[in-house]
């Protein structure tokens, strides 16, 4: 069920070594007197430098899977190994530090801290780690990020002074600023119009293609998923299919949409 649809053209291609592995993940929630099985045994592997999209309809379990992969939540059973560490075996503090140092998150609803300005929001992971982001290499990295997301001149704006697209770009910059091993993006374009959404996806793709950033993207939009090297189709708490798209510069979604149609999605 795999398909190589386009020849890789990237400068930074995924290497074979997995940076993220999930083994037989399940997740259940009690809901009143019944139990909801959000995930029913998911195993997957993401190689360093790879751009993977998790696709599926609402309620398919894709966001739950992302939360478990990113260590925001713990599985009912199974385990997640991120950068060589099994998250469920770590204490809350160590898991938090792993998240802080090795991952970045972008959420659908921007989720910036309204009290902090653009620079402070981007520098948040450093500040949380007790580092001073106003000096040396960190300051340079901040400047680099602001440039990457095209927010020069707006460094001291507060979130409520920015457009939605700009806010999401700040969120992307914050997720990338530590140079994380993995970037998790949960419907990052869900609240944006078409053009602004594309800007965000372009920025993500550039970071993957040019800097070797590993990305796991959750989306229900085939056009967004078409930026990925590989698409995992989630349904009913399981991975129903894997679609290999390969690294492509044009992000054409036609083939993917066709494949999804074959799957009835």
């Amino acid at each position: 069920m795999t398909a190589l649809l386009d020849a890789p053209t990237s400068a930074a291609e995924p290497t074979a070594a997995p940076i993220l592995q999930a083994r037989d993940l399940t997740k259940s929630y009690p809901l009143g007197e019944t139990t909801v099985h959000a995930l029913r045994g998911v195993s997957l592997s993401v190689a360093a430098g790879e751009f993977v999209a998790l696709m599926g309809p609402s309620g398919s379990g894709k966001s739950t899977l992302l939360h478990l992969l990113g260590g925001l939540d713990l599985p009912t059973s199974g385990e997640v190994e991120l950068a060589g560490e099994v998250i469920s075996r770590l204490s809350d503090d160590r898991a938090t530090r792993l998240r802080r140092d090795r991952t970045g998150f972008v959420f659908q609803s921007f989720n910036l801290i309204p009290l902090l300005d653009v620079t402070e929001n981007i520098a948040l992971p450093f500040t949380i780690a007790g580092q001073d982001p106003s000096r040396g290499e960190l300051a340079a990295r901040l400047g680099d990020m602001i440039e990457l997301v095209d927010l020069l001149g707006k460094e001291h704006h507060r979130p409520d002074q920015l457009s939605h697209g700009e806010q999401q770009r700040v969120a992307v910059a914050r997720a990338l600023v530590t140079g994380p091993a993995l970037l998790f993006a949960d419907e990052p374009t869900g609240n944006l119009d078409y053009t602004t959404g594309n800007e965000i996806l372009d920025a993500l793709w550039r970071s993957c293609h040019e800097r070797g950033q590993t990305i796991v993207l959750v989306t229900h939009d085939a056009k967004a998923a078409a930026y990925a090297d590989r698409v995992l189709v989630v349904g009913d708490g399981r991975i129903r299919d894997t679609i290999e798209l390969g690294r492509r510069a044009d992000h054409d979604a036609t083939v993917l949409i066709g494949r999804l149609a074959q799957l009835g999605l």
Partner: protein
Amino acid sequence: MRGLHALAWRGLRARTLRSVLTMSGVALGVAVLFAGIATDAGIEASVDRTVEGLVGRADLRVAAFGEAGLSPATVEAISATPGVAVAAPAFERRTYLGLDRFGPGDALPAPVTVVGIDPSAELRLHDLTLASGAHLTRLDEPSALVGATLARSDDLVLGSELTIQGPAAPTTVRVVGILAEDDPYAGPTGRAVVMPLTTAQAAFDASGFTRVDVGIAPGTAPSVVVEALEGSLLEEPYVLSSPRELGLAMRASTGDFAATTALIAAVALFAGAFLIFNTLSMTVVERVRELGLLRAAGATRSQVASFILVQAVVIGAVGSTIGIVSGIALATGMAAWIGTVGDVALPGPVVTPEGVLAAFAMGMAVTLAAALEPARQAGRIPPVEALKSRMDLPAARRARLRWLVAVFLLVGVFGLLIWPRAAGDAGLIRALAVYAALLVVALCVPFLLPFLTRVAGLPFIPVARLEERLARASVLRDRGRAAMTVSALTVGLAMIVALGGVGQHARAAAGAWIADVVPGDVLLTSIFPRTVDEGLDDILSELPGVASISPIASFDLAIDGVRVDGAAMVGSDLASDGRFHLVSGERSAALAAIDAGGSVIVPATVAERDGLAVGDELDGTTTNGSVVVLRIVGIAERTLPGDGGEAFVVGWPDAAQLGVAGADAYAVRFAPDADAAARETLADEARSLALDPVPLGRIQGVIGAALDRVFGLFDALALVAIVVAALGIVNTLTMNVFERVREIGVLRAAGMTRRQVWRSVVVEAGVTGGIGAICGIAAGLLIGALMVVLAGGRPDVAIGVPWLSVAVALVFGIGLAMLAAAYPARLAARVSIVRAVGYE
């Protein structure tokens, strides 16, 4: 409507902790208020009892000036005055019992009060209830009635013999009756010996009378008798008073206490109002969508507003009821702690229906006043709010200064209505000034907030940089709410610091006063006047280590027909001691002039009040009715304390003319090389001469301890206001956490540990507490100085910084605030990231 009310009730139950906190805030405020009311009622009752004990059924009391007392001619004139039905003369002296049993070096026993009465007249005005035995019958029998306490302490039974030590030979009387335990005639100490008038006078070798109680014939107006007495008593000075005046004088001594308690109650209620306002505002913000839905479904504005008001009524009623019950306990504790207020013994609180009603009404009024603004906000929520995915209600977020002023005024006006009458006008003006100053401080807080937040955050930067940054921003996010929270804390802390300042000044002023006006290190006091003939000066001055002995007498003085406190002192002793300061007049000349006679030194407080100046002449009335002209030779910064203020100081030649029989105290100055043995020798010798040696340090210590007790109580009450404010901090921070759930989730997702989240909330509380402490301390210092100045404090005693109170305010302000953050911080640390980031 019933459905809406049920919804309001469910709203309270849904947030049990918050409802309980708010009710506790109201309860604490009402408790302090009711404790004050019940204590004041207890003081009133105690004053009434004391006055009744003093004068019984007498309508008027004619009291003598000076030791010699009223002459028999005056007593006769009183009896003969038209309208006088009963004139009961009495003679009073203080002495020791059984001095012969005490050896040198023994501490003197507690003195007793000997009262000589005319049994037939006295019993028509006073009950003299007996526990056992029989009443006195004749004027000259060698019998006595004794107080129950004295009988117990001295093992006296019916038939026991008592030796009364007079100035000459001792007199022996037999106990024929013991007064009942609670008979007011035995006085507050219960150590009274009631003897027939003639026997008592003979024992003390006296012929005068201390006072005459007058019973007015039925149908005669007291004013008519007063006028007649004033017309007929021209021979010698006297003080004419009615039970009402005695009561007033006693109440005056409790005024400051009542005023301060009432003020602290107002502050506690004010802090409670902040708590209620914040809680109900929080309810509006949280339920904005629900309330919008109600509006969309057809509920009117007033129905939605009543949703909030019903909650307020429940909070107010439950809180006030609990407050009244706790107030009784608090007042009982206050009475036990304080013992006496001014001259009035405080046996316990008295619960009156009016007091309960006033406290309940105040609790309800403050709660409802605090609820009005949130209720108005709720009524103004547009139905469209219910349709929005995210809620933002600027109106609900902006706390309004005008609301603050309105509640402040309401508490003030209501306070005026139930203001304790004992506090008097001066107390009221002082309290109003302090109250207004607190309002000004509370109004200034929002404007100073950005600067103060930065300052208060400084101590946290080295240990929690990010947390400090977030806390600072969070405090400033909703300035109105932060200002409310801080203001409540500020007024409580300001009271602690202000009371600390006033207490410190009072101690310093009292200490300095005693040290300045007494020319010695030790005061030897006597309960009866010691004449020059006794030669005590010579005996004492020959003792080793004694550098100087200076006799002092305190007496009543009639100046231009008005009773004032008088003191006889030796001018040359004051001149050589060098601490008696004059603000007007030449010191050495003035002191020499009083020794020469015909001169007086007037205390500055009186000179200022009555417009007296050096060179003025005053008429002093002597005991035989003639007049001594006293020329003012100096105005003293302060003089010896008397019963009703500071004393007019005269020399001994004038004192003798004014009827002063002898010294009732000796100031002893030791030589610089005097050792402990010399002091001990003096003490032993003094006791053998029936003089009680009291080192000045001990007098200052006793005054200091009494002040400590009173101010300790005030501090404890003010602390209640701070606890209320701390409850407000719990509420505010909880509200902040609920509003910031998503933000906290993002921070956690970005790598903030639970501990860091916890810390950021605690730091926010610390910053809030720090701002409260800074404002509270600054305001407290200013208000303390204001209180001292308004109370006519000594300008020469610097109003220092009460460091202990400042430290307490700092520790309590910041510490209690951080402690209050424990619960909201735990809530914040437990926020689920997954839920938080999806939280709308």
